[in-house]
């Protein structure tokens, strides 16, 4: 039995394809997913004054207690920030405002500095951001949808559903186990001659197009910021990353887009697969965790990026 469901949350459309058991059981599991995603949005949206993110930003240095799941997400963000040399930064809120992606433009800002001031106390599960609002504000928009998919998959596993594919707005994908009789899930990348095969892995896709604003020099600027320069990213036209979690894939796809072709040589264990499309249209990909040629070990997480015909 294949069940297909969809709902609106986090300002996008979530879709899920689930397999196993009878329809009513899968429909019930899908409703649990929806509740989980909505709760995740309540916790992480910086648009919601009661969210954890809003409370951390409003606390101005005071410690805020968070749940372990959110703490782990912040730790992931800090790790990707470090390993990408600052190409991923969840404190780009002021940059987004400066460039007019949060209402009226507030004028150009310098490089993002917020991560230097984000403190994570694991023992107490507390977080503080001890900087002025102008220097950095936490905004987990780049990884929240992937995180929601990770939570959704955990909820599905709890309900005994193991086979499925979930996505949020097509930019965040989570492949669970493949349908009965199939090796893995195949995902196409729109506008690129490339395919990704995934098994128990997250996929993030980032591109600067979609939301754009007019820059001062008359050109258009995409909504992905380069935190290192404080300006819109120009490293690539599309990037995709595969990781064990969808949140990790989201974070890395943003970092790859900012880094451009330089990202292909980056040595990061967490990055199971990557693809970058340069400004000139060159498509380069690399898979670290592909299937074994003899077909063994395919029950674990793996991915394969393929380009060309």
């Amino acid at each position, binding site marked *: 039995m294949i069940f297909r469901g969809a709902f609106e949350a986090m300002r996008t459309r979530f879709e899920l394809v689930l397999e196993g058991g009878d329809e009513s*059981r899968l429909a*019930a599991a899908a*409703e*649990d997913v929806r509740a989980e995603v909505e709760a995740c949005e309540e916790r992480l949206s910086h648009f919601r004054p009661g969210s954890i993110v809003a409370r951390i930003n409003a606390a101005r240095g005071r410690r805020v207690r968070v*749940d*372990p799941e959110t703490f782990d997400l912040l730790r992931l963000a800090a790790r990707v920030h470090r390993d990408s040399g600052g190409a991923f930064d969840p404190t780009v809120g002021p940059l987004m405002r400066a460039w007019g992606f949060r209402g009226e433009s507030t004028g150009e800002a310098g490089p993002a500095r917020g991560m230097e001031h984000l403190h994570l106390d694991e023992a107490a599960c507390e977080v503080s951001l001890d900087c002025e609002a102008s220097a950095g504000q936490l905004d987990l928009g780049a990884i929240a949808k992937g995180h929601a998919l990770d939570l959704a998959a*955990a909820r599905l596993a709890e309900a*005994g559903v193991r086979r499925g594919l979930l996505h949020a707005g097509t930019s965040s994908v989570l492949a669970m186990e493949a349908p009965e009789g199939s090796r893995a899930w195949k995902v196409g990348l729109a506008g690129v001659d490339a395919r990704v095969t995934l098994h128990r892995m997250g996929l993030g896709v980032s591109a600067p197009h979609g939301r754009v604003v007019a820059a001062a020099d008359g050109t258009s600027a995409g909504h992905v910021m380069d935190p290192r320069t404080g300006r819109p990213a120009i490293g690539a036209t599309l990037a995709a990353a595969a990781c064990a979690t969808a949140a990790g894939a989201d974070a890395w796809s943003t970092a790859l887009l900012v880094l451009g072709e330089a990202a292909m040589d980056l040595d990061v264990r967490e990055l199971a697969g990557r693809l970058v499309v340069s400004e000139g249209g060159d498509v380069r990909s690399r898979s670290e965790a592909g299937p074994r040629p003899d077909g063994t070990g395919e029950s674990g997480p793996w991915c394969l990026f393929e380009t060309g015909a």
Partner: protein
Amino acid sequence: MTPPMDFDRRSFLAAAGGSLAAMAVMPELGFARPAPVSADPIPVALIGAGRHGRALVDELQKLEACRVVAVCDTDPARLESIKRRAKDAATYATHAELLEKSKDVKAVIVATPTHLHKGPALDAMAAGKHVFCEAPLAHTAEDAREMARAAAKASTIFQSGLYARSNPVYKLARGFFRSDSVRDLICMRAQNFKKQTWRFPASDPAREREANWRLDPSVSLGLAGELGTHQFDVFHYYTSKYPKMVTGAGSIRLHNDSREIADTIDCALTFADGARLTYMATLGNSYEGRYEVFNGSNAAIKLAWSHGWLFKESDAPTQGWEVYANRQQFHNDEGITLIADATKLASQGKLKEGVGLPYSPQYYALSDFLASIVDGKPSVCSADEGVRATVVGIAANEAVRTGKPVEITEEMLKA
């Protein structure tokens, strides 16, 4: 038990010193009680870690006056899951074990299935714990009354989980309702539309029946009881009156999966003065979601969980505060947005972005519960109120189930 106050609009106006004065001050008041502060966070336990229990833990995490120290559920998978939200919480399979071993617990949140509220609530009260119990309080009036009797004897706080009573938007709109903005009450209506199965996944097939108690006619109060109880209480809260008679009907319009509980219902609740509340609920369509409406001769008030609006008749007198009000167009009608702390938000330039509640209604109810414990003030929604709302919900479900009118007597409403 304190008998329900018979609200009289004109005597309220006399006490308030006239409608204009009352209306003028309403937007100035802070309707959200400040979040409680406690030097030592109150150790709280959650009993029932299903979908709703998890949502309550999320809200408890935001309240610095408490710390979730223990959770109990019969399903090990749910306990494993809740540990990811409440790191330091001890987990138990039964509430008895929790009460015995987690002696430091001072307050208990009962979020089990409705028919399983009574046991944990009574045992927690007997152990000297403060209790927040979801509504309806029980699936039978006898069980609800037994809980209210225990609450009356206990020296601890008991709060019934009727969320409108703590919701700042609902409290603000109630001020308008009671200060003559609506004037003569013409009729009332409410709905709860959400396309969903009302089924809950179980971690293993043996738990299917347990997880899907809402679809079990022997214990479920159906849509009228499980959802309607909360919405009927909005009308009780505003008018201080309870219906005398309820009629209803229900059928299965979408979910033909061998269930017996209707997925679509309608009820009519008639009050002593002839005023009627019509209610519809369905699991087959989501249009317009959940709301409650009071239609009066001067205006209508529409409440939708996190939002509220006032729709004025063209011949209704204009109030000074309306000049600053935020407005929203609904087809041919213009609604004045009812915003808690509107003046404060306006002074901060946040009036438009603050049209909804910043926190969920559950947050405000739990905040009130903790504040009562910290301040020693009476519960914002007593067990007696919980009994009255539960009795009305049970009667409405009975009317839907049998298709016959059900009378609600004064005697039935007594705790």
